[in-house]
């Protein structure tokens, strides 16, 4: 009745939306190309789409720096994100659920949490390097740190705000404490846990690029930074577009996962950060 986005007309209207989006993008690209070709924009600062495509081809075959192809950059960045993000989810969700379901613990822990997540994550990089060296570990841990607090606080908040009537209903139906946790509190928390995970994914991209800008040899962030040394704005644009494509793809994947896992949930609009 209310799953209107799955009806034939719903699918049609989404396709039309997609089409409009593509047409808009193509139009902007064409305008850009036109402005550069006719001398209205400086190609040095605003490399036109055709030039960016050429550059992408070069990075794919020759690599930038020579030998390091776009695939290695993408792989390095995506792997760092996935490692840090997965760690943050695996630890953040259970810890958040545990803390949120115990009032005393919640009161004791939350001030620490508020402080820890107020620390600007990037500013921890030098400290991470001092503790864990300049290798992969400190990069991944930084992503982990940035994501963990968001996932954990959202999970804790999710349990805290469960409507007490769900618990009461389960109690009058004879469910035990364990049954209530796994069959009521956990599913009731999932929509908000997911919204925390979505915010964290965006943050993961933010932090990894910052880390790679400062210290890394491979990765889309370091590609952009290296290009700067040679004043290659077309190369920077390639890195930038790759980042947005993969950021978008992962976010869409997460949305899809949510739709599959939580067909019953309406998407949450308000999000805790």
């Amino acid at each position: 009745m209310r799953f209107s986005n799955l009806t034939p007309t719903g699918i049609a209207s989404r396709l039309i939306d997609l089409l409009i989006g593509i047409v808009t993008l193509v139009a902007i690209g064409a305008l850009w190309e036109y402005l550069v070709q006719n001398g209205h924009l400086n190609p040095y600062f605003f490399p036109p789409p055709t030039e960016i495509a050429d550059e992408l081809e070069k990075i794919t075959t020759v690599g930038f720096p020579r030998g390091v192809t776009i695939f290695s950059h993408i792989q390095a960045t995506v792997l760092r994100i996935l490692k840090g993000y997965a760690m943050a989810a695996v630890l953040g969700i259970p810890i958040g659920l545990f803390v949120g379901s115990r009032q005393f613990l919640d009161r004791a822990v939350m001030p620490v949490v508020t402080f820890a997540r107020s620390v600007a994550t990037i500013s921890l990089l030098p400290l991470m390097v001092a503790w864990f060296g300049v290798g992969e570990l400190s990069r991944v841990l930084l992503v982990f740190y940035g994501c963990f607090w968001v996932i954990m606080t959202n999970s804790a908040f999710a349990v805290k705000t469960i409507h007490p009537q769900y618990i009461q209903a389960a109690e009058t139906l004879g469910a035990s404490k364990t049954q209530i946790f796994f069959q009521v509190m956990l599913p009731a928390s999932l929509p908000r846990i997911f919204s925390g995970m979505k915010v964290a994914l965006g943050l993961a991209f933010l932090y990894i690029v910052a880390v790679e800008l400062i210290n890394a040899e491979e990765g889309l962030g370091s590609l952009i930074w290296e290009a700067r040394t040679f004043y290659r704005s077309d190369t920077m644009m390639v890195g930038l577009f790759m980042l947005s494509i993969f950021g978008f793809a992962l976010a869409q994947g997460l949305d899809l996962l949510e739709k599959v896992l939580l067909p019953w949930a309406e998407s949450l609009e308000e999000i805790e950060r």
Partner: protein
Amino acid sequence: MNEKIRIAGVFKSFKSRRNEESVAVEDINLTVQTNEFVTLVGRSGCGKTTLLNMMAGLLRPTDGSILIDDQPVDGPGPDRGMVFQHSALFPWLTTAGNIEFGPKNQGVPKAKRREIAQELIELVRLKGFENKYPRELSGGMQQRVAIARALATDPEILLMDEPFGALDELTRSEMQSELLRIWQARTKTVIFVTHSISEAIFLSDRVIILSPHPGRIRKEVVIDLPRPRQLASQEFLQYYEEIQSAIF
């Protein structure tokens, strides 16, 4: 008839944050017979929901005792089914999943609880909606599921907290007739909380009128009319006036 519920000298007070005590119900004495349909009516603040929650075991009386089959109530349990005002259905479970929740957690095997759910779905006339989620159902249908869910553990007592309060007028009167049909099919002891005097007369064997601040029993009216009852009949109106004058 046997005595099913005995409430003797029950007081309930709550402490506010500033440690002020407020009395919700005071000196409640009430016995309910097996298979009787009793309604609690009264204005907001008369403690009718508090009283119901104490029978459910969700609240403990500050003083006095509540006995069910001569046993003191000690926490909630599947022998007392509860239907809430806003269905409180689990949104992540389908109609069948919600109904099977109680039996499942009692360890009833899968095939058996499927059977229980099927039977109840037919009883509440929701065939074809087994696999719908609550948000795909109308308010009236949600309350049908909530009633079926409460019946799934085969409780002897059904506690209903303004179950039709959030429904529109037409759905509400339809659900009242449905409830009577279900009650007659399953013979339960029902405690029903409502704001509506006509709902109370239409449904119950006995109406308990509570007065607020603190909640006390003001009057009891036995409704001695054959069912189905006619809302506009002379006797109905007389009961209405009697109850209304007791409330105000």
